[in-house]
C-alpha cells in the first residue's frame, strides 16, 4: 500500500475512502469551527444528479458537488434568504465548512469531511430513512 494510503487508512480506521455518496442524507454531529446546538435541524443530501441540498438551521441551501475517488468538491452553494439572528454564524460556518471540503471518508453511519491539509472539518451521521 502506498504510504499516503496507509496514513489515511490508519487515520480513519473502519472508514472507507471515496465511496459514492449519491442519494445519501446526513446530519452534522460535529464541526471544527462551530458548536452545533442539539435543537437545531441541519442536514445535507447528495443527489444522484450531482446536486447537493440541505438545511442550514435557518435556510435551505443548494448547489453542486463532484467526487473523484476520495476527493470531493462542494459548491458554490446558494441559499434562501431568511434571517435568523441566533443562527447566522452557525449557518455561515456550516456552508463554509462544506465548501472547504477537499476529501471525505465514510462508513455505514458516519461521513467525515477533511480540508486540503487532511484535517477534519466536520463529521455527519446518516439520516434515518423515513
Amino acid at each position, binding site marked *: 500500500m502506498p504510504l499516503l494510503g496507509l496514513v489515511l487508512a490508519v487515520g480513519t480506521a473502519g472508514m472507507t475512502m471515496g465511496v459514492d455518496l449519491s442519494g445519501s442524507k446526513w446530519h452534522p454531529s460535529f464541526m471544527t469551527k462551530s458548536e452545533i446546538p442539539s435543537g*437545531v435541524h441541519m442536514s445535507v443530501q447528495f443527489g444522484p444528479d450531482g446536486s447537493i441540498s440541505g438545511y442550514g438551521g435557518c435556510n435551505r441551501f443548494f448547489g453542486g458537488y463532484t467526487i473523484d475517488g476520495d476527493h470531493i468538491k462542494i459548491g458554490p452553494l446558494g441559499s434562501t434568504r431568511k434571517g435568523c439572528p441566533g443562527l447566522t454564524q452557525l449557518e455561515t460556518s456550516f456552508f463554509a465548512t462544506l465548501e472547504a471540503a477537499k476529501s471525505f471518508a465514510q462508513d455505514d453511519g458516519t461521513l467525515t469531511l477533511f480540508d486540503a491539509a487532511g484535517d477534519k472539518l466536520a463529521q455527519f451521521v446518516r439520516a434515518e430513512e423515513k
Partner: protein
Amino acid sequence: MTGRNVFCRLFALLALSGGVAGPALAADDTGKNSEMIVNGVPVEEGQIPWQVFLTRSWTDANGDRWVAWCGGSLIAPQWVLTAAHCLEDEGVANKPEEMEVGYGSVHRSKLKTVKIEQVIPHADYKSKGSDIGLVKLKRPIGIIRPIEIAAPEIDATLHSANANAAPTYVVSGWGRLLDIGDIDLATQLHEVNPQAAQAMAEEINSPEQLRAADLVEVDVHDCAKLYKSVGYGGPTSTIDVERNICAEGKDKRADSCQGDSGGPLVAKLQGKFVQVGVVSWGHSCADGVFPGVYTKVSSYNEWINNTINGAAAGDTAAKP
C-alpha cells in the same frame, strides 16, 4: 490585516451601505427618493408602505428560544404575500400561532403587530420550487393601501416599455447589509474592540431601518445557464424561466440578502408601483457574479387570487 485596518474597512462599508447617494430610480410620486439591503439606502416613512415584517418565534425540544424573520407585502387588507420557505421548515408548515406580522413603520422597533390566522405555502414548493406563499391575518389592516400584484400582461408591458433596456426594479427589506466576507471582518474586529464589533454585527445582520435598492433585470435564460454551470439543479434551485426573475444592482453591488426573503420586488408603471417578484434565493449576496433569484409574481397571479377568493368563500383548504 491590522485591527485598525479592519475597523476602518468595516466603518467604510457601513457608511457606504447607509449613506451614499445612488441613482434615483425609485423616486415615488411624492418626489422622494427611495434609492435604495446590500448597498441599499434607508427608506423613509411612507415610501414603501406595503412592506411587512414576518417573524416566527419558537422553542426547540431543549427549551432554547429561536427567532426567524422574513419580509412580505400587504396585497389585500387581510393578506400578505411572501416566500413559501418563510412559512415552513424542512417541509413542515410553521404554526400560525408562532408567527406575527409587523407593519406600519420603516423602523423595526416601531412596528405594530397583528396575529396570523393561516399560513399557505404553495404546495409545489418542495417538488417544483414554487417559492411563494400567503399569510391570512387575524384582522384586516385598513390603514395601508395594499400593493397591486403583477398580472401576466404586466410582463409584456414592462419589457416593451423600453425594448433596449432591461426592466428596473426596487427591492426592500430588513435583511443583512453586507455579505458573508465582510461579516468575517466583523469577527476580526471582535479581537480589537468586542463592544464595537457586537454593535456592528447586530446592525449588519439585523438593521433597525428598512432599506431598499435599485436593481436591474438579468436575462433569465443567462441566469439559469450561469447557475446550472456550477451544478445547481435540484427542485428548489432550478431557475424556471417562466416562474423566476433574476436581478442585480446596476454595478452588481446591490442585492437582497439573508433576512430579505419573502419581501417585494416592485416595478414602477405609469406612476404606480406593482409587485413583480418575491425575494427567494441566491449565491452569496451582491458577489458581482451571481444575480439574486426572485419568484415571478405574475406566474402565480391566478393561484394568489384563487387562494384568497377560495378562503373568502370558506374554502380554508385553498388548494393551489
